[in-house]
């Protein structure tokens, strides 16, 4: 793990990159990283995030700045700008069930080719997907999902990069921290090693590549 400035971290992200962004309706999203992505105008991004949040918040800021060309999400109903950009074919949107979304990312981070889920069988979601029967139940084969970068927001990070999360701001963050080539983290507080007890570490330090310095 290396501690870097937010400018330095975002400079590593090329235009057109695939980025996973933690957060649920903007809660638990690394806002400082997204503000810097907007400032450096990283265009043509392929974004993997649960939802499109709302304008001015979380990944909503990326839609405000029209930096997204592709979105993989479960729900965009509360961001009219994301909807407009989808309807105008400026953003290609892949909507998938939330349980499938998180399991595909988990599979991507755990070295699995995909998962078998009953969710979506017999619906529009099943179109073009392989169906596999196991012990009399039909499942959809949903393939693993990874990205070049994961932008993660933690509550506490220690100087080594061990992470804990707070309340409902945990959501997709620890799962995404497993599923990208480069993991960049912001934390509400950065604390000395030992403050986070081993039993309380959720994301172990070796998973974190860059920690954004505070202050």
């Amino acid at each position, binding site marked *: 793990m290396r501690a870097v400035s937010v400018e330095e971290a975002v400079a590593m992200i090329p235009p057109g990159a695939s980025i996973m962004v933690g957060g649920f*309706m903007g809660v638990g999203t690394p806002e400082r990283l997204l503000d810097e992505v907007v400032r450096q105008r990283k265009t043509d991004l392929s974004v993997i995030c649960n939802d499109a949040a709302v304008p001015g918040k979380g990944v909503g800021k990326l839609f405000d700045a029209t930096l997204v060309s592709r979105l993989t999400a479960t729900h965009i109903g509360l961001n009219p700008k994301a909807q407009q950009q*989808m309807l105008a074919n400026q953003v290609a949107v892949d*909507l998938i069930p*939330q*349980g499938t979304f998180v399991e595909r990312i988990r599979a991507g981070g755990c070295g699995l080719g995909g998962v078998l889920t009953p*969710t979506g069988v017999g619906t529009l979601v099943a179109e073009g997907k392989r169906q596999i029967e196991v012990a009399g139940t039909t499942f959809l084969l949903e393939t693993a999902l990874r990205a070049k970068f994961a932008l993660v927001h933690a509550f506490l990070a220690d100087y080594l990069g061990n992470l804990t999360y707070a309340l*409902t701001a945990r959501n997709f963050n620890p*799962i995404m921290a497993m599923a990208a080539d480069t993991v960049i983290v912001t934390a509400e507080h950065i604390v000395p090693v030992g403050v986070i007890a081993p039993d309380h570490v959720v994301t172990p330090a070796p998973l974190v590549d860059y920690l954004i310095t505070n202050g």
Partner: protein
Amino acid sequence: MDAQTIIARRVAQELHTGDLVNLGIGIPTLVANYVPPELKVFFQSENGLIGTGPIPEQGLAHPLLTDAGGRPISALPGASTFDSAMSFGLIRGGHVDVTVLGGLQVDAHGRLANWMIPGKMVPGMGGAMDLVSGAKRVIVAMQHAAKGKSKIVAKCTLPLTSTRPVSMVVTDMAVIAFLDGRATLLETAPSVSIAEVMAVTEAELVIPDNVPEMKI
């Protein structure tokens, strides 16, 4: 009593002590207001919380403690938080006893459509498909008709949320269950007749000999 209150009060009667319950957005959210305090129910918020409490008093909201719509909520003593893989493991894995969702259409066999209107409204399914596929009991809480058109239809014209039939539909006019795959009228709302329910229900209804009135 207005339509939403009738529905929320009646759905609340389906919850039991110890149940893990997930409430959707809209009318389902109101159900929590009618659960008697002696009934110890665990409410799950799918963004990673069991033990959801009421909206906090002004000034006590925490930006990292929100419901699935991103609004501030509280956590009751004994609450637990977890990541989204755990949250949907609970949902898909059959650990959620009851889920209450809104609906656009329910067909004669109990199949629900509630996530998109092609060409008009494509918000995404969020957690709805997993909830309907995996919760032990699925209750749809919705108005019986929209703009005079029955929402309980012979066949869904909107894309299905799941092919798995729901357990029960509670509307402002009736309680309908899907026994042996057929829509069956279990109760009528106060001062609503069986004939009135049948008149605004497109799906064919099985009418048992005894159809009591909701006790709300």
